[in-house]
């Protein structure tokens, strides 16, 4: 099944779109051979600087590059303003929801979100009940995945309120583009993204524990150099000028979390952790975790460290909660959601399950807790047998799944051997929350490199593009 998708550069109906006009003029003047060369240059730059990611389950190529496409994805200033309003509202609601869920649970009492959805959810951490994080912020760094369907229709595909990754690619993509095509940035005014690490650092410093004296000590916690996102952890620590620590470097000393240094133990005030909740503290969560810090949750509850993002934020981006986001936004902000959700069938509900099973070959079905594009079924692209097998799994544990219509995600051209060719894209803007909300103009555009494919995840053959927000 081929869907007629909206192309962001050259829609069939209306012709070249305005945000792309200056770029298109430039592109037409370029020698195709030179562009191909630039493409190879880009790969060399990435390989040399070691921007790689590990793919789980692939022994051979344990370090791979995320393919990079040199055609930028361009968003006009106006489009961006509309998007940011919607994102800000959503992020406010996410934090308000978390605060409520771990305190009074008014939204449950009001019956707007079913109680059992929270209580039975693994992402809900009872250990966080009654805990108010420093500065009252739960989710500090958020990636909101957005898809586009037409000129005016944007939807939120999912919220990433735990530890969203990919921001280093946003930064390196821009860096690479500026190296490859300096003249383009002279011609076209693109809003900068380079200051993200500084914003992140300021944002983390602003949510330090109240008891912190002087400049707070910030550190990035990584599972280690064999983690698939290790490059990003090192990159961010480096750019922020803070320590990159592992669990083995940390312990609780005198009621604070401290890192083992060449001069003894030194206190940490803010920990930007890139380790999952369940590995954070073997005394509180998984006892077999060697990645965490025994006792950090006690320090946290005592208000002596900021953990960003807070433990337990997963309850806000859980796929089962996702379908309630329009209600959640309205409940906490008092206004209708500016950015809509994709219509979603909750398979836990009998009527929905029936519909989903009957229309399985038209729908995208996802595991409630899955991520990275694993464990999902894209109905229109699946064989009959795959659909049947998935139906059985679905019927056996319906509450584990949600379903969405197969949307014609917008496309954006990529450069191929045969010239430009449209491919489906999504967008992940990065949002920082402290005493204010900041959104870096643009974000990470992920692109499905296979013709017709809708899966943009890097672990499944997706690539990335530089994302331009025009300063117009």
């Amino acid at each position, binding site marked *: 099944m081929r869907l007629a998708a909206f192309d962001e550069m050259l829609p069939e109906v209306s012709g070249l779109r305005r945000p792309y006009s200056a770029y298109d003029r430039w592109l037409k003047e370029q020698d195709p051979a030179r562009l191909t060369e630039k493409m190879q240059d880009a790969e060399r730059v990435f*390989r*040399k*600087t*070691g921007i790689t990611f590990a793919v789980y389950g692939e022994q051979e190529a344990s370090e791979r590059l995320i393919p990079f496409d040199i055609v930028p994805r361009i968003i006009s200033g106006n489009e961006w303003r509309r998007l940011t309003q919607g994102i800000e509202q959503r992020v406010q609601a996410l934090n308000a929801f978390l605060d409520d869920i771990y305190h009074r649970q008014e939204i449950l009492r009001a019956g707007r979100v079913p109680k059992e959805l929270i209580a039975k959810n693994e992402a809900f951490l009872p250990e966080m009940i009654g805990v108010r994080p420093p500065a009252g912020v739960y989710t500090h760094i958020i990636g909101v995945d957005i898809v586009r369907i037409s000129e005016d229709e944007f939807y939120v595909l999912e919220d990433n309120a735990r530890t969203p990754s990919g921001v280093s690619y946003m930064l390196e993509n821009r860096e690479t583009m500026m190296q490859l095509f300096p003249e383009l940035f002279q011609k076209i005014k693109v809003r900068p993204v380079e200051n993200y690490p500084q914003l992140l650092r300021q944002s983390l410093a602003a949510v330090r524990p109240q008891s912190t004296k002087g400049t707070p000590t910030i550190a990035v916690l990584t599972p280690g*150099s064999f983690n698939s996102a*290790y490059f990003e952890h*090192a990159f961010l*620590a*480096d750019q922020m000028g803070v*320590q*990159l*620590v*592992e669990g*083995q*470097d940390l312990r609780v000393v005198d009621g604070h979390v401290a*890192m*083992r*240094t*060449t*001069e*003894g133990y*030194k206190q940490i005030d803010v920990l930007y952790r890139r380790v999952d909740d369940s590995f954070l503290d073997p005394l509180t969560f998984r006892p077999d975790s060697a990645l965490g810090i025994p006792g950090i949750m006690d320090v946290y509850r005592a208000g002596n460290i900021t953990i960003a993002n807070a433990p337990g934020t997963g309850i806000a981006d859980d796929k089962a909660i996702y379908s309630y986001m329009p209600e959640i936004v309205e409940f906490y902000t008092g206004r209708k959601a500016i950015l809509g959700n994709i219509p979603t069938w909750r398979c836990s509900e009998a009527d929905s399950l029936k519909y989903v099973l009957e229309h399985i070959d038209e729908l995208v079905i996802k595991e409630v807790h899955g991520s990275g594009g694993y464990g999902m079924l894209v109905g229109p692209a699946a064989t009959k047998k795959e659909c049947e097998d998935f139906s059985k799994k679905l019927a056996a544990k319906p509450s584990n799944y949600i379903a969405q219509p197969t949307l014609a995600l917008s496309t954006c051209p990529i450069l191929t051997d045969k010239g430009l060719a449209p491919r489906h894209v999504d967008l992940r803007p990065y949002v920082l929350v402290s005493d204010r909300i900041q959104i870096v103009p643009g974000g990470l555009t992920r692109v499905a490199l296979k013709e017709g494919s809708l899966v943009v995840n890097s672990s499944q053959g997706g690539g990335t593009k530089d994302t331009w927000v025009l300063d117009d």
Partner: protein
Amino acid sequence: MLLGRTANGLYWMNRYIERAENMARLVDAGLRMALTRTQSASEEWNSVLLSAGSDVAFTQKYQDYTAANVADFLLRDTSNPSSTMAAIETARNNARMVRTALTRETWESINEAWMSLKRMLARPIDERDLPSVLDAIKRETALIRGSFYGTMLRNEIFDFSQLGTYVERADNTARILDVKYYVLLPSISWVGSTLDNYQWESILRSVSAHRSYRWVYDADYKPTNIADYLILNVRMPRSLTFCYRFLAEHLKFLGDDYGERHACHATADKTQAMLRAGSIKDIFDAGLHEFLANFIRDNTRLGDEIAQDYRFN
């Protein structure tokens, strides 16, 4: 202030870079010997393996001391943790771990060395290509060193890196001298005489000092002069005295920065004082082998103490 783990990573990264290069230099010296020697070269290859500290592991795997076997074992074989390939891989893993402490140039030079050696050493080395492979290894490590010295701030990160370099280098030079001396010196009574023997060159060659030796001493290879050069010369960058001059200096920087002296400071100062006061005659009188064995032991202890005192063990 550094994470103990970072100090550890820097220290070992540099030890392994040094080791990767030393292996190439040893094979180079062995190759030269094998080419110039009329009789069996196996004795020479055996002494190369002894200098590398890899003779036992080698004999478990191979029967014959041939150029192909030894080069394979010392350069390519990743089951030998000291082989150039294994060493550069360990160096790179450490560099990856401490990436945030390195300049972009330093990291890239290590990453590129790893990529290019991995490609070059993927298949057994054709004997005809061995000289160019050895050159390439030395070139890659020279590039790393160049980027490192050219771009790194002279702070504690630099100090811990240099400690790794010089502990490894001192160990390497002492071992080469210890092993080769016995292979090459027919009898202790020959010590003072001039030996018209090009094989002496191999000792110097394995520490890249065959040319500079002649700038300092007569053109003749005298065992006492060679030992003097490798042990006591203050200006020779691979001599024990040179290594300890820098070990003591970097430890002093750390001690001043942190305002604290540890056991490792005392050990390094003691060894340095001993080298400064020593004369080559005294060393020979007391026994060169004993001297070197003691040195190697103390040097290893220094490494352990550094790790303990700066919390990276």
